[in-house]
């Protein structure tokens, strides 16, 4: 166990691509956590997807030993946090395990939306923040301008900001000293009842659930019977250790220390992020503040392209959930798509990550329905329904009012694109809260309906600012809206998976867009196909796919019946990949395109 004064617990907070993982690697290298031959680039990003996308999904931690210029040995616990808004809650929990944070800003890019969001989170968590400018070795670096931005936008004193290049190692020694000098040591009482914060937990096929903890008070020892205060679950600790970053078993963890435990826990739902661990026999009177179970906010249907893959999909989802209790799924069936699952996620990125893992790690080919948010429908019988699926939308005559989730979005953008951003936010029903200029950049804060953001906001923002805008958001409660359900009908039959809930002002244009898309992608058939968008019984858009005028081979060469039969068989094979809606065959591609737009 280490003396409190020799411990420094800190996180690195940064916008994506500002060099967080590279800096973590450099710190690990400098502190001898790994031999040079063990250093693979971005050690902490252990999943393939994290490496490829350059984002951190799961919180990681590493314990480092550092001998300072004063000759003393220090223990650094570097807690790597997820960097994306979808995982904002996980970020806040990780930060609660720290006393300080390095605010890493790319000196060539400056402050971005995530810099801001993460800095505010660190400020909320009462952390000591040390601004660090990275990439100062690059010719495009503008340290003075970026320092000014940090002061103007975030309101932090940047006079003593450290100047480093995580890539070359320049300035990293000074950074290590600053961690000792400028970040405070943890406080805690070894004699007080045990309180340890669950920072993260994951499933290991050999060890079961591994729980990453930060001890606040008391002591974790092997064999101790612990209780999770949120769930009440009781387990005996069978392993305690720290990551160096290699796992290294220790006998105990005291106040201020960060490490992992295993305790025969079967499901990560039993070791929820943010929960407090205490001694079962001598429990703490109160859990640590701030715990809340994570709530999925974006939902979509996931269906196997090949119905025979349903069981594989179910098993794969169950396996992924072992390691990610923040996404939920339940069986669902659709007339057009067959059997699948309704899945809930923390956000769009989370959805994409799960989808990508299902496709990559489990080899599944999926049809994903358009993402939707959770609506609160107040019905005439006084009930409030939490609606995850547009096709469950009750009859409009039974609805008193509908509420939808809103977000507070922060966008930083070069001023030349400001007009377009304002236009986009306006079009997406946004309400402007703030507009400030910093140099030649503008920061706008808007209140926006989440459903507009999950539709196509990111793509539009990216294209209208040529990628120069940065965007971050936080959930901002529910608000009543004039929402309607738009159904898509194919020859009069409702295609359940294409139903969407939209604001009344957009119903017609969205309905028409889907009809036009389907018209272009549904091939001519034996009979005319009517594609309609409807609100209740009222048709708001209509397109028609004309029937075949001609569909026959003029010449049937001599006696070569085989060739003709093979052709027919091929066509029939193609038919299998069609989605059948009543008598109409809709090609998979048409479906996917329509779902993308919905």
């Amino acid at each position, binding site marked *: 166990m280490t003396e409190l004064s020799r411990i420094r617990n800190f996180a690195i907070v940064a916008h994506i691509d500002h060099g967080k993982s590279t800096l973590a690697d450099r710190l690990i290298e400098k502190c001898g956590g790994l031999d040079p031959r063990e250093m693979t680039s971005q050690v902490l990003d252990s999943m393939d997807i994290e490496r490829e996308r350059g984002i951190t999904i799961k919180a990681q931690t590493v314990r480092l030993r550092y001998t300072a210029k004063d000759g003393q040995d220090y223990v650094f616990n570097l807690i790597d946090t997820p960097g994306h808004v979808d995982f904002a809650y996980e970020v806040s929990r990780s930060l609660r395990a720290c006393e300080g944070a390095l605010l890493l800003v790319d000196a060539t890019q400056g402050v971005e939306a995530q810099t801001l969001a993460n800095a505010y989170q660190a400020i909320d968590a009462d952390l000591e923040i040390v601004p660090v400018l990275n990439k100062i070795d690059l010719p495009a670096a503008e340290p003075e301008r970026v320092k000014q931005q940090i002061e103007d936008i975030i309101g932090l004193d940047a006079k003593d900001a450290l100047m480093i290049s995580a890539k070359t190692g320049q300035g990293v020694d000074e950074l290590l000293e600053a961690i000792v000098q400028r970040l405070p040591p943890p406080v805690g009482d070894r004699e007080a009842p045990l309180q340890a914060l669950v920072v993260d937990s994951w499933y290991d096929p050999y060890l079961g659930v591994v729980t990453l903890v930060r001890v606040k008070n008391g002591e974790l020892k092997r064999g101790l019977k612990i209780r999770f205060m949120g769930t009440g679950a009781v387990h005996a600790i069978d392993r305690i250790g720290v990551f160096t970053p290699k796992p290294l078993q220790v006998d105990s963890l005291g106040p201020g220390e960060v490490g992992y435990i295993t305790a025969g826990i079967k499901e990560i739902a039993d070791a929820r992020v943010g929960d407090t661990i205490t001694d079962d026999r001598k429990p703490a009177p109160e859990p640590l503040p701030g715990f809340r179970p994570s709530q999925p906010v974006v939902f979509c249907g996931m269906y196997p392209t090949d119905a025979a893959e349903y069981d594989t999909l179910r098993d794969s989802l169950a396996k992924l959930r072992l390691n990610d209790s923040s996404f939920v799924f339940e069986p669902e069936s659709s007339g057009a798509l067959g059997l699948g699952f309704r899945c809930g996620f923390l956000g769009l990125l989370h959805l994409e990550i799960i989808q990508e893992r299902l496709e990559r790690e489990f080899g599944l080919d999926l049809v994903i329905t358009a993402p939707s948010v959770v609506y609160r429908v107040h019905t005439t019988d006084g009930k409030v329904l939490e609606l995850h699926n547009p096709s469950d939308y009750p009859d409009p005559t039974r609805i008193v009012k509908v509420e939808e989730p809103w977000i507070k979005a922060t966008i930083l953008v070069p001023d030349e694109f400001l007009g377009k951003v304002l236009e986009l936010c306006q079009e997406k029903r946004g309400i402007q809260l703030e507009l400030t200029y910093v140099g030649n950049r503008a920061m706008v804060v808007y209140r926006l309906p989440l459903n507009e953001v999950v539709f196509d906001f990111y793509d539009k923002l990216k294209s209208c600012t040529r990628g120069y805008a940065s965007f971050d958001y936080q959930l901002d409660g529910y608000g009543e809206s004039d929402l309607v359900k738009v159904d898509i009908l194919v020859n009069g039959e409702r295609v359940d998976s294409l139903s969407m809930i939209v604001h009344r002002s957009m119903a017609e244009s969205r309905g028409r867009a889907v009809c036009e898309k389907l018209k272009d992608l549904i091939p001519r058939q*034996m009979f005319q196909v009517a594609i309609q968008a409807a609100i209740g019984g009222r048709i708001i858009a209509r397109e028609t796919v004309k029937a075949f*005028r001609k*569909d026959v081979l*003029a010449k049937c060469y001599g*006696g070569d*019946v085989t060739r003709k039969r093979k052709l027919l068989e091929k066509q029939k094979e193609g038919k299998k990949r069609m989605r059948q809606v009543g008598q109409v065959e809709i090609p998979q591609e048409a479906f996917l395109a329509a779902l993308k737009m919905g």
Partner: protein
Amino acid sequence: MCTGPPVPAAAAPVLSRARRRPHMRAMAEPLALYVHWPFCRTKCPYCDFNSHVRPRIEQALWRRALLAELEHWIGRLDPRRLVSIFVGGGTPSLMDPATVEALIARAVAAWPPEGALEVTLEANPTSVEAGRFRAYRAAGVDRVSIGVQALDEAALRFLGREHSVADALAAVELAAAVFPRVSFDLIYARPGQSAAAWEAELGRALALGTGHLSLYELTIEEGTRFHAEVEAGRLRPLAEDEQALLFELTDAITAAAGLPAYEVSNHARPGEECRHNLVYWRYGEYVGIGPGAHGRVVVDGVRLATRTHRPPERWLAQVREAGHGLEAEEPLAPSTQAVEALMMGLRLREGVPLARLEALAGCPRDELVDARQRARLEEAGLLRPDPERLIATAAGRLRLDGILRALLR
């Protein structure tokens, strides 16, 4: 799809086996013979048939090889009654008439016809080939099918033909004098062809007074020069709607002229239908010899799909070695036979008897054909309501592939 009785495994081609049973003559099954001549002087840009251009053709060598392959089938089959011979290609009017004569003679001797035998030869209307008409007639050919393709000079050049309109008219006139029955082919729905232009051209064709016309819409087949030009954007095929319009126009004009469509693309005065092609469409038995020829023939109670090697030299080499040019012969499952019979039969105006499909498939019609779809197609006017036959209406024949996809389970 229903599963009928089991199918015997594919057998290697069996060589000549004498199984003469003359006393069964009265019960002999009808048989058609197709002979493929794989050579042309030039390759037309629309053609994806098995045709090849060679500087020199050894007629005697080919005569011997074709006769050898015919002999192979004579040896394998029970006694048969020959109903027709069709010499197609390629350009069979480049064949030595002696070869045609020898083939006819041998086939007739082995499979004595009952009643009149139809012997058709495809011919090109160049003056050189027309000069051989009398010799072919003398060899036993009683019907020619002339590859006129267009009665418009620009169109003939576009189609890569070697003859002129005048050549074509002269050839048809001469053929009418030489042969009892004459047919010719036209290709319409050419890029840019208007309804009025086609109407006029078809009118000129009908005025020639033949009893049979094959009128094909231009189809862009993969592997042809036209296909490459379409891919490259240099050639734009007529749009589907315009093609359909021309097709309907064709049906109406030929019907008014007394040569209604009896098949999707074939038109005849009643009684002048091509009996050989009817064997295909009615899913009868036919033997195919020559490179790339296909056959459907029942051997030892099993219906086989046969096909020979397409490259002429390869076929020739195998015939010399093995006595036949077969690349494959596969026994057809009962359900497959029913599918093929339906595919072919629906092309005919007379349609296809459901009892025949049931007999081939060995299962009741409802397991073979989707009854709900059938009712729907009848309602839409694409199938004619008939309890015993599946019959496509004129509108249905224009959408036959879609009908088949809908009907077949």
